[in-house]
């Protein structure tokens, strides 16, 4: 009996839940002051999230997937990418997307039932929101392959959840990422739950990070509530990718503090205790403490900033609410580059019917 292979999966935490450092600052964060704008982004995201939920509750938004508790992971991922990179989000990584230029009104349009939410002014090449879980990972592998074939030093970053890491598309991304040694970063955001199914029911694997071993990828497990660790993990993964050293699977350990979406009621399947406990590890507490201890942040600043965030978000909400519905022909206009005659005929029929219906109503 001899050894064919041997692996270690590391766990990375830099800032402990009590707000003190677990060791020296990692290379990704040379100056703690640089964390302040990111902390502010996190606060912005939470403000947005809270208001979006409220909007849904008043019937002005469709189903909405909150990101409560995921802010450090999301903002850290977004902060680690360059504009040229391509991001393939699942559906709650607003924090990452805002850093790339996606607007809050885009998010609202999308969940408000309007395809234009996916027509980001910036970033033009990022993937849209799309519902089929973890297919984003495999599309990102395709994007990464296109970068590699064209000798572009770009990285494709995709997100999925703990549930999503069971999906065959995720495995296909791992497999092809390794086979072609792609500039690909697969971010598994382990928030403990996939709707009602707990992490342990998804797989017998001890970590989700180790799934990367199936394709020979770099694997790392990270405290996803620790912004510093997130930044460091992403630095390692994106640098590897840019150097041509291949792909990574990073497991971000966080927790879904909200229901799965506004259509879900988590009390059906999980205990209050667990949620209460998770609140003691959420990402703001520790970072606020750390920055406050360093005199980089204080209560007053926070109050003012949250006020400002509120105003920005309100402007975005209004922009969303004031956007008129697309005309009926919009359901035909983006189907083909060259519209076939049959579709064109149906388009005209739909316009005529719509006009007639409007006239009948008037």
């Amino acid at each position, binding site marked *: 009996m001899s050894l064919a292979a041997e692996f270690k999966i590391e766990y990375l935490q830099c800032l402990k839940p009590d707000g003190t450092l677990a060791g020296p600052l990692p290379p990704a964060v040379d100056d703690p002051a640089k964390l302040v704008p990111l902390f502010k982004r996190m606060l912005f995201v939470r403000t947005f999230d809270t208001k979006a939920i409220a909007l849904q509750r008043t019937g002005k938004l*469709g*189903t909405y997937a909150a990101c409560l508790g995921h802010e450090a992971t999301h903002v850290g991922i977004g902060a680690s990418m360059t504009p040229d990179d391509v991001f393939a989000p699942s559906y709650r990584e607003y924090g990452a997307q805002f850093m790339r230029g996606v607007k809050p009104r885009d998010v609202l349009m*999308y*969940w*408000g*039932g*309007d*395809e234009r939410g996916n027509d980001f002014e910036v970033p033009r090449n990022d993937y849209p*929101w*799309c*519902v*089929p*879980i973890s297919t984003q990972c495999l599309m990102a592998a395709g994007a990464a392959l296109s970068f590699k074939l064209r000798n572009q030093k770009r990285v494709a970053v995709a997100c999925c959840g703990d*549930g*999503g890491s*069971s*999906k*065959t598309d995720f495995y296909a991304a791992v497999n092809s990422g390794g086979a072609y040694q792609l500039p690909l970063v697969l971010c598994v955001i382990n928030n403990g739950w*996939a*709707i*009602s*199914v707990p992490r342990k*029911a*998804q*797989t017998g694997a001890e970590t989700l990070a180790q799934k990367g071993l199936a394709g020979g990828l770099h694997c790392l497990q990270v405290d996803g509530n620790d912004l510093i660790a997130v930044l460091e993990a992403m630095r390692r993964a994106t640098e590897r990718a840019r150097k041509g050293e291949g792909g990574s699977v990073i497991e971000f350990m966080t927790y879904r503090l909200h229901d799965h979406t506004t*259509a*879900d009621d988590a009390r*059906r*399947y999980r205990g209050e205790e667990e949620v209460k406990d998770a609140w003691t590890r959420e990402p703001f507490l520790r970072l606020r403490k750390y920055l406050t201890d360093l005199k980089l942040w204080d209560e007053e600043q926070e109050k003012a900033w949250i006020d400002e965030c509120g105003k920005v978000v309100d402007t975005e909400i209004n922009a969303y609410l004031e956007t008129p*519905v*697309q005309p*009926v022909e*919009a*359901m*035909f206009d983006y*189907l083909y580059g060259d519209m076939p005659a*049959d*579709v064109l005929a*149906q388009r005209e029929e*739909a316009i005529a*019917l*719509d006009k007639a*219906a409007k006239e009948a109503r008037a």
Partner: protein
Amino acid sequence: MSDQPIALIEAITQALAYELRNDDSVVVLGEDVGVNGGVFRATAGLSATFGPERILDTPLDETTIAGLTVGMASQGMKPVAEAQFDGFMYPMVDFIVCHAARMRYRTRGRLTCPMVLRVPWGGGIRAPEHHSEANESIFTNVPGLRVVMPSSPARAYGLLLAAIRDPDPVIYMEPKRIYRQYKELVPDDGEALPLDVCFVLRDGSDITLVTWGAQVKETLEAAEKLASEGISAEVIDVATLKPLDFDTIAESVAKTGRCVIVHEAAKTAGFGAEIAARVAEECLFDLLAPVERVTGYDTHIPLFRLEMKYLPSVDKIVAASKRAMAHS
């Protein structure tokens, strides 16, 4: 439960519970079907009653659900799997087409695949993308399958029992828009309905309206409206698309001479085409007017701000019927 009127989705729960009680080999599996009772609550309470060994939450992968289902079915169990939404069932196509539909054929009957795939189907509930698709036609050209779609609580109950008891794979599509549309008394008597007949829901003599699933609602309303204008419409709920009971349709068209087919899926190569084709083959000389199809457009169902403009409506059905009536 069964002495109170129940909605379509409750009839599904009732049928599942009945068959779980009466047949040990039945298991239910899918994402969130356990403690959570399913995202639509079709399996609500089943885990508590029958335990997690009968009501299995699966890992989040539709390929896995389909593959495990075929594997269990071929070894003597009767799994009833759930795809959480219509738009998530495409990864199941491979196992359905290559294995479920062929297990009996491939082994000359040595192994079989008595399974049901339940798929909440169709649009109109203001849900996100891929939660609103009418994709039944992906299965209707596949030999070895049965494709069923109920349109009332009683038919949901009887057809689901039949589907579970059928010795072959059945795709059971549930029109989610009418899950809670109305309630009716559905005795929990374990009586299955046949899987090879269309149901005539309304008798008429001037025109035949053929439909299935959620559109039964609009079609019946259209028939009512037509009646008020002196046009007598027969309404047929196809219910089982595959195998198609064309005789019932042919009989009606022979009587009325006019046929309007209504469905939610995109028109081109939707299942309505098959019905129209059969009419053109078998009822040509009965026809007084060209066949009409009132369907979804040949585009993706839009997100919810526009989705109702995509779907067939009472007005569209009435208009098509009147076009047909213009011929005599």
